[in-house]
C-alpha cells in the first residue's frame, strides 16, 4: 500500500499533465490537417525542428518567449512548405511527411554542428527556459492538491485550454465547419464554392502553429536543452492517436492523457529500480495495447463479411450440385 501511495500521488498526476502537454499540442495541431483530409505524418519532424529553433531563438534573443516565437515561425515555414508540396503540387502526403521528418533530423544535427560546433546536445549557452506560472491563491484553496493547477509553464495551460477551444472551433465557427467539410466531402465543398486549397493551407498552418508550441515546450519547458532526436517518437504517437480519434479534440485529449500518464508512470518506475530500458518501453506498450483494443472492435465486421461471402460461394456450389442431380 505504501508503495502504491508512493507510485500514485499528486506529483504523478501533475507529471502526467506535464508530459501530456507536448503530445497534446502536436496532436491537436494534427487534428486540423486530419480533419481537412490530409494525413500529416510529418508531425515528428516538425516538432523536432521547432524544438531546435526555439532553443536558437532563446539563445540569440535571451528571451524565452522570443524563443517560442522563433520556434513558431520555423513551424509555419515548415507547414507552408508542406502545404505547397501537398496541396498545390499534389505530392503524396506520406512521402512529403517522411521527407520533412528526415530533413528535420538531419538539419538540426548539421546546424548544431555549424553553429555550436558540437554534436549530441545543446546545453547552457544561455538558453532561457519558460517561466512557471504560479496561480495566486491556488495553495490556499487546494492545499496539497495545488500542483494540479499551478506551477506549469504557460504552454501547458495553452495545451489544455486548446481542447475546449477546438471543440468550439469545429462546431461553431465557419472555418472549423469548412475544414471538416473539406476533409470529409471535398466535392460538397467544391459545389458550394468553398476553396479546398485555401482551407487546406489554413489547416496546415494552424497545425504548424500548435506543433511549434509543442516543440518549444520540449526544449524550453522543463528542461532547457536540445538533444538530437529529442521528440523521441511523440510526433508519431500523435499520428497514431489522430488515426484512432479521427481528430476529434476530446478523443485526442483522452489518447494523449493515456500516453502522458504512461510516460510519467514510467519515469516514476525508474526511481524504484526497474531496469530503465524496460521502463522506457512502457508508454509505447500502453499506447499500442490501447490502439489494438480499439481496432479489435472493428474486427468482427470484417470477419462477418468474409463469412457471408464464403457462405454465398458455398450455397452457389450446393445449388449447382442439386441441378446436376436433377436436370430439367
Amino acid at each position, binding site marked *: 500500500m505504501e508503495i502504491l501511495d508512493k507510485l500514485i500521488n499528486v506529483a504523478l498526476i501533475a507529471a502526467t499533465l506535464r508530459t501530456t502537454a507536448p503530445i497534446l499540442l502536436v496532436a491537436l495541431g494534427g487534428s486540423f490537417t486530419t480533419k481537412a483530409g490530409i494525413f500529416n505524418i510529418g508531425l515528428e519532424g516538425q516538432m523536432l525542428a521547432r524544438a531546435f529553433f526555439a532553443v536558437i531563438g532563446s539563445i540569440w534573443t535571451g528571451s524565452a518567449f522570443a524563443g517560442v516565437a522563433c520556434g513558431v515561425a520555423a513551424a509555419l515555414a515548415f507547414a507552408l512548405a508542406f502545404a505547397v508540396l501537398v496541396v498545390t503540387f499534389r505530392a503524396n502526403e506520406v512521402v512529403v511527411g517522411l521527407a520533412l521528418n528526415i530533413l528535420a533530423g538531419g538539419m538540426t544535427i548539421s546546424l548544431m554542428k555549424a553553429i555550436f560546433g558540437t554534436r549530441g546536445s545543446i546545453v547552457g549557452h544561455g538558453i532561457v527556459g519558460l517561466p512557471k506560472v504560479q496561480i495566486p491563491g491556488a495553495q490556499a484553496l487546494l492545499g496539497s492538491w495545488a500542483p494540479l493547477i499551478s506551477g506549469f509553464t504557460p504552454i501547458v495551460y495553452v495545451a489544455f485550454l486548446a481542447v475546449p477551444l477546438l471543440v*468550439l472551433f469545429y*462546431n*461553431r*465557427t*465557419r472555418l472549423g*465547419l469548412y475544414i*471538416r*467539410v473539406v476533409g*470529409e*466531402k471535398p*466535392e*460538397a465543398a467544391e*459545389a*458550394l*464554392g*468553398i476553396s479546398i486549397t485555401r482551407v487546406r493551407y489554413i489547416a496546415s498552418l494552424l497545425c504548424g502553429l500548435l506543433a511549434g508550441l509543442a516543440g518549444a515546450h520540449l526544449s524550453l519547458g522543463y528542461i532547457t536543452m536540445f538533444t538530437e532526436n529529442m521528440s523521441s517518437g511523440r510526433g508519431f504517437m500523435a499520428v497514431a492517436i489522430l488515426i484512432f480519434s479521427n481528430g476529434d479534440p476530446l478523443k485526442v485529449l483522452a489518447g494523449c492523457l493515456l500516453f502522458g500518464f504512461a510516460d510519467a508512470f514510467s519515469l516514476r518506475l525508474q526511481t524504484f529500480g526497474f531496469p530503465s530500458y524496460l521502463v522506457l518501453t512502457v508508454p509505447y506498450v500502453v499506447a499500442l495495447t490501447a490502439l489494438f483494443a480499439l481496432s479489435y472492435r472493428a474486427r468482427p465486421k470484417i470477419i462477418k463479411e468474409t463469412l457471408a461471402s464464403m457462405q454465398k460461394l458455398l450455397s*452457389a456450389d450446393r*445449388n*449447382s450440385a*442439386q*441441378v446436376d442431380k436433377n*436436370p*430439367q
Partner: protein
Amino acid sequence: MVSNAPGSPTLHSTAAMAVELTGITKRFGAFVANDGIDLAVRRGEIHAIIGENGAGKTTLMNILFGLLQPDEGSIRLNGEATVVADPAAAIKAGLGMVHQHFKLVPSLSVADNVFLGMEIRRHGLIDHKAQIARTQELSKRFGLHVDPTERVGLLSVGIEQRIEILKVLVRGARTIILDEPTAVLTPQESRELFQTLRSFVAEGMTVIFISHHLEEVMEVSDTVTVLRNGRKVATRPTSELSKDELVRMMVGREVSFDRRPRAAPDGDIVLDVKDLWARDDRRLPAVRGASFTVRSGEVVGIAGVAGNGQTELAEVLSGLRPASHGEAWLKGQDLTTLSPAAIREAGLAHVPGDRMVRGVDRNASIAANTLMGRQHRAPWSRNGMLDWKAIAGNAGALIKGFDIRAQGADDAVKRLSGGNIQKVVLAREFTNGADFLLIDQPTRGVDIGAQEAIHDEIMRQRAAGRAILLISVQLDELAALADRILVMFNGRIMGEVAGDDADEDRIGMMMAGVMPQLEPA
C-alpha cells in the same frame, strides 16, 4: 412542326418566361450533345424535359446552371439576357439545381448541411438554433419532412434528396431544376416529391424536371419538352399529349425498315425463362414475371424505354444480379443458381450494355481484352502459364476478322473509338463458342458505319445457329434484326410483336404501358 418554333411569335410576353434558351449547341469533340435547342419555360409551371439516355437533357440543364458553357446560343432569365458563367452566377439569378448525385456531408446535421456555405451567425459563431428553426419552417411549408437535428449519414436517399431541395430553397431559388429526381426514390417518396413540386408552383416558383419516365411526366408536368439525339423534338402542353405520342416522339418516328432477309427460325429452344423476378438496387421489383424462350438461330428483341427492367433482366441472365424468383434454363442448367463464371461455362456470351464498365478493361491491350474470361483455356493457357504468342496471334486474327481499326494487338483499348471498342467486345464474345448470345445495346454511341458492321455480325451469328437475345432502346435496330420483339414496361413483358410486321404504333403503346387488346390490363 412545333408550336413555338423559333421565328414564330411567342404566345406569352417575355417577362412571363422564367427561362429562355435560344439555339443552344454543345459539342464534345465530334459528338454533338445539344444541337440548336430552343427552350422556353413559363414562370409558375412544372416543365418536364423528357428523352432517352444520351438525348442531351442533362447537358442542357448543366448549361443552364452554368456548369457547362454552350458553344452557341444564348440564355435569358426572367426576360434578361444573361451569361451564366458558373453555378454561383446561376444561384444569384435565382436558379437552383438538384443533381442526380447528392453532395451532402454525412457527419453534419441536416440543418448544418442545408446552411453550409451560408451559415447564420451570431457574434461570429454559427447559430445552430436559428438554422434548425429555419430548416423546420421551410420543411413544413413545402412538405419536405426532415428532422433538422439528425446526422445526414444515418438518413435514406429519399430524405437526402429533400435536404438537397432545402439547400436550393435556402439559397433563394425561384426556378428549381431537378435532374432525374425520381430515379432514386420509392413510389411513395415520388408521390410526396410531386406534392412538394406542386406546392412550389402554387407559390409562384418554376420547376424544370428531367425524366425519362412517361408516367410521372404525364402525372406532374404542365408542359413537356421532348429531346432526342441532342435535338428538340417538340414542346407541348401535357394535357394535349397521350402517352404513346410521347413515346413516339422520344424514340423517333423514322423507324427504318431495312430488314435483314432471313429464313424462319426452326431450331431447338436454347434459353427458357420461366416467371423470372428480380429487384433493382433499391430493392424494388424491376423484373416482374418475365417468361420467354429463345431458339437456336433466332434473334429475340427486347424493346422498351430505358429503365423498364431490361438492364436488370440482362444482369440476372449473366449472373450479375440474383433472381428473387423464377428460373432461366440454358441447355439443362438453371442460370439463376450459377455464378457468372459458371454461366459463361454453361454457354453464355455477353455483350454488356455499358462496355466501358463491364465490357473491357480500358487500360489493357486489345490482346488482353480478347483473352478475358477464357485465360484458363487452351491454347492460351498451358501448364498454368499464359502463352502470349498464341494470345497475340488470336487477337491479330480477330482484329482482321472483325475489322477493328487499331495499330495492333498491343494497342490499349482506351485509344480506340467507341465503335472499335465495341467490336473488341463482340470479337471476344462471338468467338467464345457459346450457344446463347446476350447482347445489350450493341450500337449505343457507335457511328453509323460501325453500326452496320455490328448488325452484319449479329446476323452472321444468327445464321450460325446461335440463340440471340438482343436488348435495345432503338426500335429500328430491333425491327431490322429481330425475329420477334418483346416489349418491356415497368418490369413486365407487355406483349410480343413479330419482327417482320413491327408495327410502330402497337410497340409504342406497349412501351407506354398500354396492354394489347387481347390481354386485359
